[in-house]
């Protein structure tokens, strides 16, 4: 007897697929050539046969000095791009000495309070030689400008800077929770960033529209791409409404997805997402530049699938997940460290995570040919199925008036939470096997001593701030912050006065507070 399984998106998976699965399926329409519309097979003609993806390991903790040392180590180990993790006070626009920051300074990332910290973070790292991704959303403009200020000090002009700011606030409301301002001013700030980068930092990826965090919160693959692409559509509409031509900013949009252990559906998901986006950009927004149609994306392996039990098993999970990302045509990849269900990665676990990618890139043959699953009965059928499921969900978001209106109705969040609860129930019942957790357990887990962040860094950051506030010219800070408030209240681009304030040593907390005064803060109606 054969039994039919259901995919993570709730779609049927047949025990056997044959030619009938692809009846009427036209490769010219569904696939096209690699690097050509609808980009199902990948955004570039040669993909990894030319060069592998960018190995980009997300890292950062403690002070700028400690994180700088970790970055130099990652570079020495062969990482190709930096990816900065900021601590929660920085992500929420609070200084390290704010009351609400107590206990959180330097914990999940590096603490950055001012340009002085940013200079230390990138000390000895030439900013014209590395590309830097920054996981920063509500205060994305601030961190980008701090990066530009440090580059200026290094003598590197802004047109040489390459990297990405996450800058995706809509998914913060849906899944990740580090929002500051309400949706309307948040979208306006994002449009200001698009315009600023077009004029000043043309090679910068201005946004990384992210489904990763939705997946971590419980979203299925179809929900992940549907809600992410719907967010993307909202950003494009915002920029167009702000007077930009779609081809002036769309080539700099990028995406960020998860890679789960269910690699067949994941490969289908990545391919489906590329096809949907290309069609939306062409048909709905009339984009002409082929680069505007390309869904370029970063992938991170699924942190939520890692277990605290028998943590070394996570090395295997990460290898499988990473393989899925590569078979799906990712442009860059972060592989998680095996100890991330317990704490921050140690030097050794971070190195092993990078080595996993190096094995995939240099020892396997999956890089030898483009889109190896093309034409596979099951993967093509699943690509069509995931695409159809995602398109249906996107239509529901449209019916509600687009991503922001749907967020205000709590639609995406409640859909995702329902999925999360179902997964928890399946795990409890044993229907969903998690090795080491509900099957194949050990009687006694080995003790594991995780990396710890020195709690004294909170006091050290507070001292640095006190010195900075005593040293800087306060009238300059006050005047530039006043300029920022005025721009925020008008339609002027806020990034120019914001840069003046940051150059005058206004802190991250002070700049965000100036904007809070004008724009207010977001208060969700949180039900469960």
């Amino acid at each position, binding site marked *: 007897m054969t039994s039919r399984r259901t995919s993570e998106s709730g779609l049927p998976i047949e025990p056997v697929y044959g030619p009938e699965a692809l009846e009427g399926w036209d490769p010219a329409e569904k696939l096209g050539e690699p690097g050509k519309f609808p980009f199902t097979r990948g955004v570039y003609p040669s993909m990894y046969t030319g060069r592998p993806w960018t190995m980009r390991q997300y890292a950062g903790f403690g002070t700028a000095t400690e994180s700088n040392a970790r970055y130099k180590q990652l570079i020495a180990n062969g990482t190709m791009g930096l990816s900065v993790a900021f601590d929660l006070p920085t992500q929420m626009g609070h200084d390290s000495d704010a009351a609400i920051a107590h*206990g959180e300074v330097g914990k999940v990332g590096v603490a950055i309070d001012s340009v002085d910290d940013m200079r230390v973070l990138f000390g000895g790292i030439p900013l014209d030689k590395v590309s830097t991704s920054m996981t920063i959303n509500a205060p994305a403009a601030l961190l980008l400008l701090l990066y530009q200020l440090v580059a200026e000090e290094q003598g590197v002009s802004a047109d040489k800077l390459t990297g990405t700011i996450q800058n995706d606030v809509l998914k913060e409301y849906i899944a990740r929770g580090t929002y500051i301002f309400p949706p309307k001013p948040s979208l306006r700030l994002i449009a200001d960033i698009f315009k600023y980068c077009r004029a000043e930092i043309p090679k910068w990826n201005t946004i990384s529209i992210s489904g990763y965090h939705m997946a971590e919160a419980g979203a299925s693959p179809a929900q992940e791409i549907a809600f992410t692409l719907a967010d993307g559509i909202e950003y494009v509409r915002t920029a167009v409404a702000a007077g930009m031509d779609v081809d002036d900013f769309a080539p700099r949009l990028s995406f960020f997805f998860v890679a789960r252990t269910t690699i067949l559906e994941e490969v289908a998901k990545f391919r489906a997402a590329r096809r949907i986006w290309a069609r939306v950009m062409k048909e709905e927004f009339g984009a002409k530049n082929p680069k505007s149609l390309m869904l370029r994306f970063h992938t991170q392996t699924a942190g939520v699938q890692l277990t605290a039990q028998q943590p070394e098993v996570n090395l295997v999970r990460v290898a499988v997940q990473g393989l899925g990302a590569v078979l799906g045509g990712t442009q860059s990849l972060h592989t998680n460290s095996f100890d991330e269900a317990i704490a921050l990665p140690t030097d050794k676990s971070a190195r092993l995570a990078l080595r996993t990618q190096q094995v995939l890139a240099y020892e396997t043959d999956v890089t030898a040919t483009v889109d190896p699953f093309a034409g596979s009965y099951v993967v093509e059928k699943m690509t069509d199925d995931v695409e159809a499921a995602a398109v249906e969900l996107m239509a529901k978001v449209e019916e509600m008036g687009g991503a922001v209106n749907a967020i205000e109705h709590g639609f995406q969040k409640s859909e995702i939470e329902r999925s999360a609860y179902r997964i928890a129930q399946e795990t409890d019942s044993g229907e969903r096997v998690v090795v080491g957790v509900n099957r194949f357990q050990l009687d006694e887990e080995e003790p594991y001593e995780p990396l710890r962040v020195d709690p004294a860094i909170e006091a050290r950051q507070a001292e640095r701030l006190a010195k900075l506030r005593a040293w800087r010219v306060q009238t300059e800070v006050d005047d530039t912050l006043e300029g920022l408030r005025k721009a925020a209240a008008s339609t002027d681009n806020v990034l120019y006065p914001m840069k003046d304030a940051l150059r005058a040593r206004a802190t991250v907390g002070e700049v965000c507070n100036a904007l809070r005064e004008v724009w207010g803060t977001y208060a969700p109606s949180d039900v469960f």
Partner: protein
Amino acid sequence: MSAEEPIRIVIAKPGLDGHDRGAKVIARALRDAGLEVIYTGLHQTPRQIVSTALQEDAHGIGLSVLSGAHMTLFAHVLAELRDADAMDITVFGGGIIPETDIPALRDLGTAAVFTPGTSMGEIVDWVKSNVLPVSSFEGTSR
């Protein structure tokens, strides 16, 4: 005295951490098991959490912290409870919490800490047998 009084639990997200999957899943599981559950929403200060618990006349507070700030935040919630003379409210919690931190959290007054991989059933059973609606137990201090 009513023996039927349901157990009331406040599920709370202290600090700046925005990851609420675990908190929401546990809130639903407790609710489905017949408990009354109040979810605080994100970014709550310890004082706000204790004030919610007092207003709701809660019997227990479940804290969820994934950001590594658990030592500070659990200590602050327990200190606020002490200041409010409400130490009869049972505090438990979960999140990304290293095993080696658990003894210190228990010393602070945390009744139980659930780490990743704990089943919903185990947590529901623990709450049902360890967080008791005080009014059904005349004579205990409240």
